[in-house]
């Protein structure tokens, strides 16, 4: 008996804690890898425009997350096979990415030095993307996200909207906020409030994928 109960492999649909707010904002959902994912908000082109000119936010809580415990050997944040490998401390690291990009047991437990815990639904996540993304985050987070302090590919743990969280800088204008699952609704409210005021809006996976392309 160990940690099977943490595994997300049910035939049921897994849901983000922000799903209801995304729905209220007009999200259209598709089930992807067992998760109900907001694909768009009815206007994909406008969403892409928001990402180019202001700040879009997208619920990416469905990304898989693993916690590595032990000598992970990571010197800094690295990107492997589409997943972010983020050391949080000397003995702890977080791996996150699309389900298919996640490491198998062989990759994470070399010589059994590292133990792995599935923490996908420990952390909800929002991606903020666009030239005003950093400005939006500055409305509720005091972390120094200037490029000289937080270059692309770095992770900053700290207070996000007065709650424990982390910010991963994925690109020049792209930040992923990671926070507790239970504060999902609160975080959506905070981000929506700040981003909308600056001309931003919710965007779906299609817009995010468009930005990646």
């Amino acid at each position, binding site marked *: 008996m160990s940690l099977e109960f943490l595994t997300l492999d049910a035939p049921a649909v897994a849901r983000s804690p922000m799903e209801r707010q995304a729905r209220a904002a007009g999200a259209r959902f598709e089930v992807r890898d067992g998760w109900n994912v907001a694909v768009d908000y009815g206007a994909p082109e406008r969403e892409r425009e928001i990402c180019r000119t202001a700040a879009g936010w997208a619920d990416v809580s469905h990304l898989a997350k693993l916690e590595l415990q032990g000598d992970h050997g990571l010197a800094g944040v690295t990107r492997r096979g589409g997943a972010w490998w983020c050391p949080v401390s000397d003995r702890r690291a977080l791996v996150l990415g699309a389900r298919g990009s996640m490491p198998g047991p062989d990759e994470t437990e070399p010589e059994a030095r590292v133990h792995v815990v599935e*923490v996908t639904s420990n952390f909800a996540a929002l991606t903020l993307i666009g030239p005003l993304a950093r400005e939006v985050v500055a409305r509720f987070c005091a972390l120094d996200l200037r490029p000289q302090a937080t270059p692309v590919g770095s992770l900053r743990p700290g207070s996000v909207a007065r709650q424990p969280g982390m910010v991963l800088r994925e690109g020049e204008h792209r930040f992923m906020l990671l926070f507790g699952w239970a504060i999902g609704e609160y975080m959506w409210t905070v981000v929506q409030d700040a981003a909308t005021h600056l001309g931003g809006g919710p965007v779906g996976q299609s817009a995010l994928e468009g930005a990646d392309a």
Partner: protein
Amino acid sequence: MSRLPEHPGERIDRQKVIRFSFDGKTVEGFEGDTVGSALYAAGRRTFSRSFKYHRRRGLMCCSGQCPNCIVAVDGAPGARACTEPLREGMRVEHLNARPGLEFDAMRATDLVGGPFTPPGFYYKTFIRPRRLWPLYEKVLRHAAGLGRLPRQQPERMWRTEYRRRHADVLVVGGGVAGLEAARAASRLGADVVLAEEGPELGGRRLVDEAGEGIAALAQDLRAGGVEVLTRASALGYFDGIVPVWQGDTLHQVRARRHVFATGGIEQPLLFAGNDLPGVMLSDGARRLASLYSVKPGSRAVVVTTSDRGLHAALALHEVGVEIAAVADLRQLSGAPAQDLGERGIRVLPRHTVVEARGGKAVAQAVLAPVGGEEADERPLDCDLLVVSGGSAPATSLLLQAGARTAYDAARGGFALSELPDGVQAAGEVAGAGEPDSVAPSGELAGLEAAHAVGLGDERSGARVPELREALAVARAGRPAVAVPPPASGARRGKCFACLCEDVTSKDIAYSVKEGYDSIELCKRYTTVTMGPCQGRMCQLPSIALMAQETSQSLADVGTTTARPPWRSVPMGVLAGRPIDPAKRSAIHGRHRDLGANVKWAGDWRRPYDYGDPQAEALAVHHGAGLIDVSTLGKLLVRGAEAGAFLDRVYPNRFSDLRPRRIRYGVVSSDAGRILDDGTICRLDQETFYVTTTSSGAGAIEEWFSWWLADSDLEVRLTDLTQGVGAVNLAGPRAREIISAVTDVDCSNEAFPYLDARQGRLAGVRCLILRIGFVGEVGYEIHFPAAYGEHVWDALLEAGRPYGIRPFGLEPQRILRLQKLHVLVGQDTDSESTPFGAAMPWIVKLDKDGDFIGRSALEHYARETPATSLVGFTMSDGHVPSEGAVVVDERGTPAGQVTSSRYSPVLGRVIGMAWVPSALARDGVSITISDEGQKLTAELRTRPFYDPDGEVLRS
């Protein structure tokens, strides 16, 4: 209209007329005007009524420093008319005058109240009779204050928000010194933010040369990436964080270095009637003329302690103001006096003003030799009295940052004497306000700030001594200034030291006579420096008056402590966005769908009930109930020595717990007091799953981490609280319900009480714990939070034939009380031990090794606790308040009720209370004092429901 002919540098666009209203009447101005300049141009001289005496007040500084022009704009009180930009259709209203600005009934306090309203009269007058205080308070509150806010605001009327900004260098002050500092630092590669309080950059250059050259400099800065904030007031200095208020935004600027180029504040003079409309600071009058092309008066008298007033006289004369005379407090006037003489303007050396006369505004100024005889007085007719009492360096922010000042007798003010690390000063605030020193001083500060953050090169390094040299030369050639007398003509009428709070020179003298003879005490007693100007206009005058009254030097009197905010700021700006952090379980949406009565429970939003707590409790007894317990803390403790670790942090034993078994645990502090409780399930040899109370989750995670950090045990901790959802299915039909949706054999034989199993439930992998907090057969089901609604729905659906009901916290509290299950934090406090809380069995003093709290618990084990936690049942139907007092036969408090409820299944009121241990026996009768009522209760030491636990184990 008193508009001057068009001239270069004016800020108004005469082609664009702007209409707005003042007290309901339409007024016209031009684009580029401020509310103040437009009203002044339209002939208005009274802008406000004073705080206490309701005297007329008019424009004085025209730069947002004084309290004289505070108005409400579109319902928001607190705006300075002289800096508020004009907008089409804006609604401007006066404050603090009833029925109107022109006739204010409260003016009677000035006419008759002066001698009857000395400092502290509120405290002396309104204390008797005490019962009338509520009435006094109402009246005083009505009379006091600066404007009104709507009593209730369904939504906030104005959006305000925080913005965090990190920077290498923050420059406060957008005058020449600040601009030069920002340019120097940014040229070396620093990330610079510049905050200017006024509507535009330029500082004194705006007055002297209508901002000549400033636009180009600003352009240069912006091109170099400097973030320039205007109308942005730095409010304080908090260990390197400077909040900068700009409109609806509070920028929290976190810079590595700070340059304060906050300039100086032109000081008023104290004389009888020094607050009459038409008494204006020299820079104020010049601003009106040069920036807004408003003629400040037709005939002016100018009184000055320095060349500043002489320059003002020249500038005003230039635009057509007749100068009746200039009084210079110095014996020898500066060079501009010659220019004035050539224009036929009289300059009276060693003269000052002793009185301003007039009704609604100044009509006459009385000049006299400094310290001279009444016979030498010169009354001069005028409609403008321009005064310049020197300049006080604006050191408040620097002082908050740790700088020091010292009295400079030659300048008659307090000058910077010491700077703390991390901070530079530039321009007038640093004693470099003259035209030839202000720019080098700014450049020097900018270079030093950049160097301090590791930027710069050899050239910039070499520039530093050059600039220092230039500043030393400039300092030696500064023109002289006179130190004005503390007050002149005080016998003739009120001389206001503090315009904000209506504190006169006599009030300061009175305060000293009453024994408040230090400047800090005087400040608190008279409220001088505590108004909206925050001491900008009144600190130096009040220190001078205090020195005079106590026969001390100004240096000995010293200054009051500089405190934030440096500018008055709406509370809403400090409040930020009105969004409270709340935790919600993954099933929360379903609770809302079901009409739950949701309330705060710690930092969670939880269903208290679904409309009928009693029926929900009964459903658990008669069929089944389902409660969301996702809020429980959930910690994974893993590693070869996980059992040993738990043995160390709990007083009972866990290393001997068999896999798939569960044990109750109480966490105690090193003082043996109860911190938290929960269940511990051993998943496998090296893995324990620990639950804590909902409110204790964070603290216990920290507690475990704290002890782990200091141990060499091979243990890893993961907090799964938010990632794992949990529900508790309980009731006589619970087994049938769960069996319908899980592949786990839930028969009592296969899955007995206090066992744990993993399996699938409605397709979702789950950990099922067989425990029973509510007293019926129960299964606590844990699963990934992302499947929360699915699991909840499946159980409710499966339970429908058995009468399942969701139940909330309130029925849960009834059910657990029936079992006398302790709620940590509710039934215990920071002094409670497991012995007092009737759980001596949890402490295993016979176990090997040390554990947290061992020595304290050994001590408590030898003693009978003074009080014990027991159950009680009421003799009548009264439900005593939680917190009601248990009293002994003499009526002395002897204990406390911690929980009480009506139990629908028992049909009576039950509860838990701390009572003297000697009484803690079944059947003993106690008295509870509850809000004046004496109630009788009978004690019970065993659970009210299923005392032997047969139901739970069945």
